[in-house]
């Protein structure tokens, strides 16, 4: 348990993979914009007390501030969000690794396309620096699959298969969580992702267990 107990092991704002990184960057942009807008609105309200009363134009408040201002900001934001969303899609790439995550109350079982006979429990092995598609399923209730430092979360819905693209920049251990409330064992519905370097991944596929 090398990193367990470390401050950032579950943090979405300390990314360790490309998907988490673009989302973290998105967050900082959102925070900056939101802070600016909040200060602007607060200033407008304070000014209502600080200035002498005068004729106030309805157009300025309703049309410019109420309609034009949010529409402009939102259009830009939406475009940005769509671009980021497109980048996160699980598209076909040559060095793709495919694994399966099967959730149950309250454990995870992982299966590997490259090693059909193998299953691991509560530990997911992946190669570092290669895109990994996780096919997420459940055998009982709705669960969620979330490795905050690698990517966003995706639910496991009975009868459906959802595919999430994750990738770790560097070898290491990354904490994973069940992220949809699923009953009394929810708190401990966790797993670990171990990202191997090239040699380590080859060894893993040949049956060595770290």
């Amino acid at each position, binding site marked *: 348990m090398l990193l367990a107990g470390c401050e950032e092991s579950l943090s979405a704002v300390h990314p360790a993979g490309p998907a988490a990184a673009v989302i973290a960057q998105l*967050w900082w942009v959102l925070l900056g914009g939101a802070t600016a807008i909040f200060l602007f*609105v607060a200033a407008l309200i304070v000014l209502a007390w600080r200035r002498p009363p005068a004729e106030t134009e309805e157009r300025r408040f309703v049309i410019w501030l*109420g309609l034009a201002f949010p529409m402009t900001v939102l259009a830009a934001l939406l475009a940005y969000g769509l671009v980021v969303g497109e980048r996160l899609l699980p598209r076909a790439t040559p060095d793709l690794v495919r694994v399966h995550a099967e959730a149950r109350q309250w454990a995870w079982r992982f299966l590997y396309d490259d090693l059909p006979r193998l299953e691991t429990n509560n530990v997911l092995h992946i190669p570092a620096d290669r895109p990994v598609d996780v096919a997420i399923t459940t055998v009982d*209730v709705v669960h969620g699959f979330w490795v905050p430092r690698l990517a*966003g979360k995706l639910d496991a819905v009975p009868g459906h298969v959802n595919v999430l693209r994750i990738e770790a920049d560097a070898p290491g251990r990354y904490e994973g969580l069940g992220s949809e409330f699923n009953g009394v064992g*929810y708190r401990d519905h966790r797993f670990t992702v171990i990202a191997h370097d090239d040699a380590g991944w080859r060894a893993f596929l040949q049956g060595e267990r770290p």
Partner: protein
Amino acid sequence: MNALRRHRALSRIWASDPGLKGWFTTVNHTDLGRMFLFVATFFFVVGGILAMLIRAQLASPRSAFLGPDHYNQIFTMHGTIMMFLFAIPFFEGLAVYLLPKMLGTRDLAFPRLTAYGFWCYVFGGAMMIFALLAGFAPDSGWFMYPPLSSTIGAPGINSDFWLIGITFVEISAISAAVEITVTVLRYRAPGMSLSRMPIFAWYALVTAVMILTGFPPLILGSILLELERALGMPFFQVAQGGDALLWQHLFWLFGHPEVYIIFLPAAGAISTILPVMARTTLMGYGWIIAAAVSLGMLSFGLWVHHMFTTGIPHMGLAFFSAASTLVVVPTAVQIFAWIGTLWKGRPAMHLPMLWLLAFFATFVIGGLTGVMVAIVPFDWQAHDTYFIVAHLHYVLVGGFVFPMIAALYYWMPHFTGRKTYFKLGHAAFWLVVPGFHGTFLALHWAGLLGMRRRIDSYEAGQGWETINIIASISGFVMAIGFALVLIDVVVNAVVAIRGSRDPWGAGTLDWAMPTPAAPYNFASLAHVTSREPLYEDPELPVRLARGEGYLGDPARGRRETLSVDIATGEPRYVVIFPGNTALPMLMSAITGLFFLGMLIKAYWLVPISALGVIACALVWVRGLGRRAPEGKLTVGRGLSLEAAAEAADPPGWWGSVFLLLANGTFFGSLLFGYAFLFSIAPNWPPPAYLEPGILPLVLVLAGAGLTLIGPRLDTLMGQGAALVGLVLIASAALPVLSESPDPTLHAYDATVWVFVGYGLLHCLVSILMWSVVGLRRLSGHSALTTLGARRIACLWSDYTLLVALLTTAAIGLPGVLT
């Protein structure tokens, strides 16, 4: 007759029964509004205590205060109580109390329905409290996702309490919504055209229509899930053709409009209070109405943003992401129109204004974090973490609780007739608002550091400890502040000195009466010629008390008010209200037995109490019919009008129209659910589609023909034909169900049974209605005084035959096509 004698005469007519009995027999909106607000505040306290338990548990890591089984019940009940038993009923209470006063009339459209809704709320709420105290409260989270909330994840009675208790409480939401809609449209002071209506009434109208179209999907979902739990009909079991996602769609189809159902009344209060505090009139009245209406409509198009992580295709997500950000625009129009109003006037810093500033600071932050989570990739990280917990509290506390406290302090002189004298309110403000931000601001960050919502405890070392201890301490500070608000209200209500009539200098009609309000509201009804009648004519209250308006003469000795034309506000007819009665309470108690029978699986109780409800309903309508017409009645100011009982569109007809709007949404949701399972759910098609053959089709078509034509011949023969038609339609159920004997086999069979059950229920309702109309005619009621009842029955039987035809198509087509 002088003002005092008029007051005495009207009070005799309108007063509730004295003493304890009055609590149970009152149908007066002032009483019931206060009772609604009182009970809703009680539930706010209960929900608040649960919140304190949550914060106590989370104050430190590895807390051993509560185990997961108790913790799960507590957070589920905190959300459930705050949403269903506090926020919605509090709005209902405020609207019930205020609307007739603001609209310049004497009561709501259906006084007994107000009482019925109130008692359903009390009894349903009591069920939930009982479950909480007995230790088997719902524990699957307030959005109750199956399969966790179904028999697989929750075999006990816990989920049943939620599904049955909340459905029972929703009766009060639906009845209040019908009532508010009809009241705003038809019960106003003469001359009050739509464009002269107080802004709060506009907001209440939009909110009420949203309740009528937003709650039915939830009611349907609850019924389906309860059918799955109780009888094994597999709507959400994937192995048998159900789909857990169907619940999520139905729930959020309700759940998102719900957020705006909570925010819009608060926005209505803000739009009313803010201009008075700024000593000016509201900027952009028309814009604000347009914004409220478009907010209401847009809010139905973005439920999927609660389901961004369920694996919906990216293009679908893009659409709902765009819709979710678009909803910011009408919100911004309102915010900036309010700020413009402040700029336009000379704002004074009274206590209500202080709470409105807290609203701005809090709600703007909540709105901005709302935009963040509307951006899909960010939501994939923030979803189901404390970021969402913080966001939703900013929106709901900032957008509802703070404005409601502003409203409380603004209308307190009205509720009590006293000056707000003690200054506890300021101390409370400075505890609640900083306490609130101390609790929730840093929790956003905890969410980004990976703190999931709904975990019952956590390990140290994630950087969450400081945030959580600050949140817990601030949470208790906020709770002390809320307690102080309550103490302040009680103290002021009991001991403060008598105040003047219109302490804030407002212009709306709610201040054109002595306070506390007399049971009849206005001694005579004003003729309104502007949006702020009191600014135009400050002497208006005196002239109304002198009886210079309409219906100032109490000679007829019964509760009367005027109903007006929807658009122009021209007076149309005289409405005669029923007097005090315990019937609504009795009927809701029997309705409660109906739900209780299902809850404790005492199924023998269900049909008995259903018969009891029908009996009550028959007694209910008995009082509405008159044998012979009264002709024109003088209403004062040289005007004579007919009574509502002789109109073609009596209040009951309008009520039916809006009840059918809710009902139609329910049926539409059922069709949506069927189409969803048909096209999305795995394990479809079912082993076999029904092929019931030609017999049911013939029965339905023949029955539909008779039901369509019969009522339109105004003869007993025609009414008889309608009855025969309805029986024919109902009898088509037999051959259909005999083809599909087991509703537990597949979601398809289960759906067929629900379709048939819904159709049969409507046949029964229509048969009852036409029987009542026929019996009235037989017993010598005139054609004129049964006209309204006939048209109401006609609405329902037309709806029934539409349902029958659509159901026949929905059940029959897949079998024919495949």
